[in-house]
């Protein structure tokens, strides 16, 4: 019997962001999380010599700027990032707990920093190492329904589960390319059943696990064809089980069915954001330069799509590290729900 993959389509909605070291905008963003109402939290990694650009930006889906926190600057030396409490050096991942507190992973400091939803620093945890509960280059964070935190422990090639305050609970995975083994995994997502999806970065595949760490399935092989992956960095699962993969090396987003079958892909539909328009208005000759620019269609394309998120309102977010923006799609099901023609 042949199975029919039920398609979805991705309808471009709008683009948010612009390249900035502070204020409205992002600089080499690497991760995002949905907050309450229409808030999103975006982690910018910036350049090493511009630690002021390392931060978490709070804004709305409609691109209203709310604020920023966790800026990694020190007065110790020009261009040197700070490791003081609440600042960032190599941030990688972000997740919100049930109360709306914000957890940010830093893969250089091997540290999880916790902030309130408004950005006030609360606490930190994290011990470098390879033993139980020790971490090495944390790169993905996700809370399960019990508010336990799954952490992708990248250089230890495993996933560990912690309480919110860092007490070790369990782990699964080890280095390798067999089922349930990892090679420098990166992103993580947990679906409504509590199953766990891991972007197994250097194995060019996605793996799915039961909440207890039992291997369930995998999909993806190295390549650039449909359903193939080149260093997948981010993964997200929607309420209907569709799996969204940030196919970083191929500069595209791919969508898979719950069974891991290829559904669709996009290479980007970037448009001028609200903040971007402000920027162009302030530099109005750039509007004219755009009129004569050649290859302007390149502006649509993803460059470094590093993270993907979905929410229950059918929004799909793609974070682009090299374009300092987030492209937002609307997920559309082909199902006919009745009503008039």
């Amino acid at each position, binding site marked *: 019997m042949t199975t029919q993959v039920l398609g979805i389509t991705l309808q471009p909605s709008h683009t948010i962001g612009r390249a900035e070291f502070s204020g409205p*905008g992002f600089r080499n963003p690497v991760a995002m999380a949905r907050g309450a109402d229409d808030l999103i939290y975006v982690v910018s990694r910036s350049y090493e010599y511009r630690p002021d650009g390392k931060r978490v930006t709070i804004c709305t889906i409609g691109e209203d700027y709310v604020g920023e926190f966790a800026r990694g600057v020190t007065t110790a030396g020009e261009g040197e990032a700070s490791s003081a409490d609440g600042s960032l050096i190599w941030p990688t991942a972000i997740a919100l707990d049930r109360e709306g507190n914000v957890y940010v992973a830093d893969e250089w400091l091997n540290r999880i920093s916790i902030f309130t939803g408004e950005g006030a620093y609360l606490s930190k945890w994290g011990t470098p190492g390879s033993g139980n509960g020790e971490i090495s280059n944390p790169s993905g964070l996700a809370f399960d329904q019990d508010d336990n935190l799954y952490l992708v422990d990248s250089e230890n090639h495993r996933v560990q589960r912690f309480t919110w305050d860092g007490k070790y609970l369990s782990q699964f995975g080890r280095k390798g390319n067999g089922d349930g083994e990892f090679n420098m995994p990166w992103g993580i997502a947990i679906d409504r059943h509590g199953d766990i999806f891991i972007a197994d970065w250097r194995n060019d595949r996605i793996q799915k696990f039961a909440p207890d760490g039992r291997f369930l399935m995998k999909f993806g092989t190295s390549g650039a064809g449909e359903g193939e992956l080149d260093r997948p960095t981010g993964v997200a699962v929607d309420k209907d089980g569709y799996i969204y993969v940030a196919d970083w090396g191929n500069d595209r987003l791919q969508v898979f069915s719950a069974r891991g079958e290829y559904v669709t892909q996009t290479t980007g539909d970037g448009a001028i954001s609200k903040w971007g328009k402000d920027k162009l208005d*302030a530099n109005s000759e750039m509007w004219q330069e755009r009129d004569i620019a050649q290859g302007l269609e390149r502006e649509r394309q993803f460059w470094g799509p590093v993270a993907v998120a979905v929410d229950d309102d059918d929004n799909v977010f793609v974070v682009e590290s090299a374009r300092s923006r987030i492209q937002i799609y609307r997920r559309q099901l082909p199902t006919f729900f009745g009503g008039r023609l």
Partner: protein
Amino acid sequence: MTSIKKDPVLVVLQLSGGNDALNTVVPYGDPLYADNRPSVRVPEEQVLPINDYIGLNPNMGPMKKLYDAGKVAIIQGVGYPNPNRSHFRSMDIWHTCEPDKVGTEGWLGRAIKEIDPNAENVLTGVNFGRGLPRALAMPGVPVASVGNLASYGVLTGIEDDDQRVEALDVFSRIYSPALGRGGVVDYLSQTGMDALKGADILSAAPEMYSSSVEYGSDTVGQYMRNIAQTHLAGFGTRVLYTTAPYNSFDTHAGELAAHAKLWSETSQAIGDFYDDLKEHDANDNVTLLVFTEFGRRVHDNGSGTDHGSGGMAFVIGDAVKGGLYGEYPSLAADKLLEGDLHFNNDFRSIYATLLEKWLGLDAKPLINGSFEQFDFI
């Protein structure tokens, strides 16, 4: 020749990144200011008024005090033809006075060469910061670049004092030019001894210094303190230079908060510097130039301002006739130059004034041409 102590001294503070002229000397009396700055505007009621049209940024209290005492010349509408909005290129133009081709010699490097043609004093010019700004570059002109005055020198990485003294002793014997080994090695030996000598002299400056003035801990504050220390030590240094940290004035975003902090620190540092010199009765032969490579866009971008042209400069000191120089460029849309304030004073006029009227040098060959001079000195 007057005594070394009373030779005129020029101090230059470079505000890297492009200081926003409109939010520094604020045209609060012009409704076009508010129109163009819906988001990035200094509130009218906070401005420190100079007249009913313009006023200083509220964070420039110490500079306002100096202005009121008649010691600050504000040069408005400073720029050069065909403005370049690249940090690198525009700064190069300010440094080399070569707007049309790329130059390698700096205007102050040339000035130092005039002041001390045979490089008899290795400290005639001193820069505070790592790496030499092109303004001071000139073949055959030794200019020390001091990252940290307290720890400046050769082999500073050797922490144990006794060991370092021993190592420096070996160093000075190895580099002794008397060894005469020929060619490039001799040149290296001479250069090494110059460096050692300069460092030896400079390292004495903090020890000789005491003051009731406490500078801020920010980079500009500390470097202005170093400049005061060096000046007060009486090494015969005539040109001292420093730079605000890497492009810190580049306020594309979050400008109001960032700019407030920058000017609060910078203005405080300038006020402290003046007070410090005055406390030591060493203020009358020092003039300070504060400049930036360009102004910023007239219209804000919602959070900050982007690269523009048409900037402001300040010349500060006892020898300075305070006041406003040049006209404040119009904000009217038809008077703008590609969306920027239209300059009405060439920056080389400031240089010409400082070189001729202050340092007593023939400016023309140093700045590649003749430019009208101001009356601020």
